[in-house]
């Protein structure tokens, strides 16, 4: 039980709650104790030793991140002894980290530089120790640069404990200690401990938790910058649903402020000719996916697919999995290729949106697809990998040319000295501008499921299998009275796995939402219990994505999440199939033969 106690901090009497750490209590009282290895989402490791403070009666200094306050504690955070140790430990850490400041996207938000500045640290007291360390690159998405690593181990924690992918390993000890991918394990005699094969799923959580960007996205901003300079193509930017509620944090906004108009304005200011909202693509995805779901349910009930002898699950049937999270797709392709037939064949919003830009919109604008360059701004590192998938090419063209993270966009905005908070908000370009509220909640765990359910329920109630069908007058009257639900509260929220039983028409329909790949096990172990499963690899969905602003913590994610649902609640239209322009686009594709398949659907392959 927490109780009220009295402590003394730097000569000042303070009353506070027991059970908190010195660092927390100090922060609440305006004394900021610096620290690098501490992260609100993880258990305390206390290995950087920067947050040390002096306690009366204690022989040694103590780490404030790990020491709880107790009654009568006398703490000093500002003695010469504290300063000596704190500064020395910072200097020692600096010598582990090769400064690549000129091209580092954390340059404007760097924990180390801030510390050096605040505490007047000599950053060159010791010679760089790790200059010969390797850079490990994972596809085109994520990298870990050993020469910048300060050994805090957050990345290992993110990969192994949070995401349970077990791809990163801490090898060696002392000064030889290094974070390495497990594929580099060769030459090690493992007695009785053959570990399972693992691979990176590109979720980028390691990057999100790295305090010094040793783990980070593979940056592509410089390529985009070049393209913006030479202007040889029509430059189109498209941004994901979750960016608008997170980007403001980097510019001093409160958590969860909606910045849609500022994002459009900033992208225009950077030199993009057109800026599209991926929300439109999300509406397309919702409809394509809901149609597939309805189709699978029908087939399943007709008894068409037969259960596989091996897994007991229905080939091609139910449960159907969502597919818009590219890290989840990589997970299936690598760890569970047997589940590939269960993935919806709908492409993701990013690829739908880009595909439509390079076909439908290109034709409308009379621009050759080859002359359009699409740059995505995503909350995600795995989206970089998705954009490079060959099977997504449309008639020889990549749908997305470059894919940047939220952090890369922030870097470009700051580098170009654009005063983001002062920008006059602009609407995204039409005809791909308007979108439903169902689209924006794609950014939160449970959002894809909810959007698809809104449309699937409508399809069930009106007994259709496509949103594109046009109605007779009598039918129109009937659909008017169709009162399909909008809110599916049971799939919202921050729980690790959300389960619900709904009615779809007159049939029971069982769904699960897996919030973070680390929680996947229970869903995969009980496939037969579900008809439809959403999986997002990052905690709380894209708002906690690996490309989002740093820091991202549970509390910050909650604010971003609430903001998304507020946008939805305020939207004029709430269901994807009510987005007339989006339905129009789908109808257009129906007349285009092969192209429909090329733009709307995809396939997956086993990877080893």
């Amino acid at each position, binding site marked *: 039980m927490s109780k009220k106690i009295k402590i003394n901090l730097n000569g000042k009497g303070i009353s506070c709650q027991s059970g908190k750490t010195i660092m927390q209590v100090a922060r609440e009282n305006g004394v900021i104790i610096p620290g690098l290895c501490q992260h609100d989402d993880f258990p*305390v*490791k*206390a*290995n*950087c*030793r*920067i947050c*040390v403070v002096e306690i009366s009666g204690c022989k*040694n*200094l103590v*780490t404030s991140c*790990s020491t709880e306050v107790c009654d009568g504690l006398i703490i000093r955070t500002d003695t010469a*002894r504290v300063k*000596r*140790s704190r500064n*020395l*430990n910072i200097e*020692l*850490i600096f*010598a*582990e980290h090769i400064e690549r400041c000129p091209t580092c996207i954390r340059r404007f938000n760097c924990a180390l530089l801030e510390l050096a500045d605040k505490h007047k640290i000599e950053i060159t*007291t*010791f*010679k760089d*120790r790790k200059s010969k360390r390797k850079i490990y690159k994972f596809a085109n998405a994520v990298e870990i640069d050993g020469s910048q690593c300060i*050994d805090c181990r957050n990345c290992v924690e993110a990969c192994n404990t949070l995401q349970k992918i077990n791809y990163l390993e*801490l090898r*060696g*000890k*002392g*000064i*030889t*200690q290094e974070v390495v991918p497990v594929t580099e394990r060769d030459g090690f005699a493992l007695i009785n*401990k053959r570990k399972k094969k693992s691979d990176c799923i590109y979720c980028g959580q390691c990057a999100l938790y790295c305090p010094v960007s040793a783990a980070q996205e593979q940056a592509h901003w410089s390529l985009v910058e070049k393209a913006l300079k030479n202007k040889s193509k029509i430059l189109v930017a498209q941004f994901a649903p979750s960016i608008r509620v997170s980007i403001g944090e980097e510019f001093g906004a409160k958590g969860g402020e909606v910045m849609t108009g500022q994002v459009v304005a900033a992208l225009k200011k950077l030199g993009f000719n057109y800026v599209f909202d991926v929300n439109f693509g999300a509406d397309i995805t919702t409809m394509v996916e809901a149609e597939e779901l309805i189709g699978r349910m029908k087939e399943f009930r007709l008894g068409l697919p037969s259960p596989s002898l091996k897994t007991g699950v229905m080939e091609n049937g139910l449960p159907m999995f969502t597919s818009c999270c590219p890290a989840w797709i990589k997970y299936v392709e690598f760890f569970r290729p047997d589940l590939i037939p269960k993935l919806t064949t709908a492409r993701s919003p990013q690829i739908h949106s880009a595909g439509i830009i390079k076909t439908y919109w290109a034709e409308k604008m009379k621009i050759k697809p080859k002359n359009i360059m699409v740059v995505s701004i995503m909350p995600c590192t795995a989206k970089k990998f998705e954009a490079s998938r060959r099977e997504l090419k449309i008639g020889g063209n990549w749908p997305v040319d470059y894919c940047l993270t939220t952090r890369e966009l922030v870097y470009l905005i700051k580098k170009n000295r654009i005063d983001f908070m002062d920008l006059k908000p602009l609407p995204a370009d039409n005809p791909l501008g308007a979108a439903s509220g169902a689209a924006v909640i794609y950014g939160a765990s449970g959002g894809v499921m909810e959007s698809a359910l809104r449309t699937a329920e409508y399809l069930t109630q009106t007994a259709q299998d496509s949103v594109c069908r046009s109605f007779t007058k009598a039918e129109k009257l009937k659909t008017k009275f169709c009162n399909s639900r909008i809110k599916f509260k049971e799939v919202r929220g921050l729980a690790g796995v959300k389960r619900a039983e709904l009615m779809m028409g007159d049939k029971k329909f069982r769904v699960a939402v897996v919030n973070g790949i680390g929680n996947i096990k229970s869903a995969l172990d009980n496939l037969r219990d579900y008809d439809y499963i959403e999986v997002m690899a990052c905690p709380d969905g894209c708002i906690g994505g690996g490309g989002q602003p740093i820091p991202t913590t549970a509390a910050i994610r909650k604010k971003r999440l609430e903001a998304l649902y507020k946008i939805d609640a305020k939207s004029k239209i709430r269901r994807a199939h009510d987005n007339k322009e989006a339905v129009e686009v789908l109808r257009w594709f129906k007349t285009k033969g092969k192209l429909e398949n090329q733009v709307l659907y995809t396939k997956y392959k086993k990877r080893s």
Partner: protein
Amino acid sequence: MDKILDKIRKANLVGRGGAGFSVAKKWSAVAEALADKEVGGRKCYVVCNAAEGEPGLTKDGYILENYAEKVIAGLKIAIDFFLAEKGYLFLNYSYNKKYNKKLAALIKDSAIEIFVKPIQSGYVGGEESAVLNAIEGKRIEPRLKPPFPVTAGLWGCPTLVNNVETFYNISLVNSGQYDNKRFYDIAGDCPYEGVYELPASFTIEKTLKQTKNYPSFHFFVLVGGDMSGEALNSRQLKRPVEGAGSITIYSLAKNNYKKIIAGWLDFFIDESCGQCTPCREGIYRLREIFLAEKADWTLFNNLLDNLADTSFCALGSSVVIPIKSFMENVLPEMEAKSKAM
């Protein structure tokens, strides 16, 4: 059953692993943790630490060689006292090789299991919470404390970790044979290297004289650890031996002190687990400065103080002891001698 705890208390037993913590206090802490009704019923474990990872130290091996049955008896007393689920005999590689057969016979039909210390776990692999990590199959390095092993040790359960010699003493206390002796590990520049069982109250000088190892040449000793001990000059020997009970004799004429210190630093660089900045980075920089042509002694001393003040575990702070005590106790004497010559 509480009798044994009373006996231990009366005998004033201290842990012989090096830290010298009161055995009765440690046992009481485990008992209290087990009695804590708020947490509910928990299992309990007992671990006998025979990692003996500091080079040059051999007394635990000596005890296993000569008094294995007493050690096992002590371990069994602890298991019975705490109603422990299991006892682990944590052996380093070479002790396991030498004594496995004998020990296996002694622990037959008991709740004791031998756990062999993984080869690459080194010196820090003998630290008590690192031992627990090893048994649990985790990365072998000290854990963040609190919680201490007595309240949350193996798999989160209250766990008693005592040294080989401590368990030996417990069995002596139990049978009324304990007479306040301890094992001394004498090594270095002396004629009769070896392990001796002598009264714990002996001073260093008396111990050396008794074993006919008192040098006739100029010397200094490292006491209480062959790497992590305290360096004392020949006028400071009227005190008892602390820590792990070792005395290593260095002839001043024979040894180059720069080499000795560099050797200590090399050892600790290799043995640091790498968790915390002051130890992982700090010791590496200490060596860099020490070997530099123009050493920055202010920085060197700051790094040492920082290590003592902020290291994660006792290994880090123990690095400071030999170096600082050498600088204080031995170096001035050496310099005075070389001036006089």
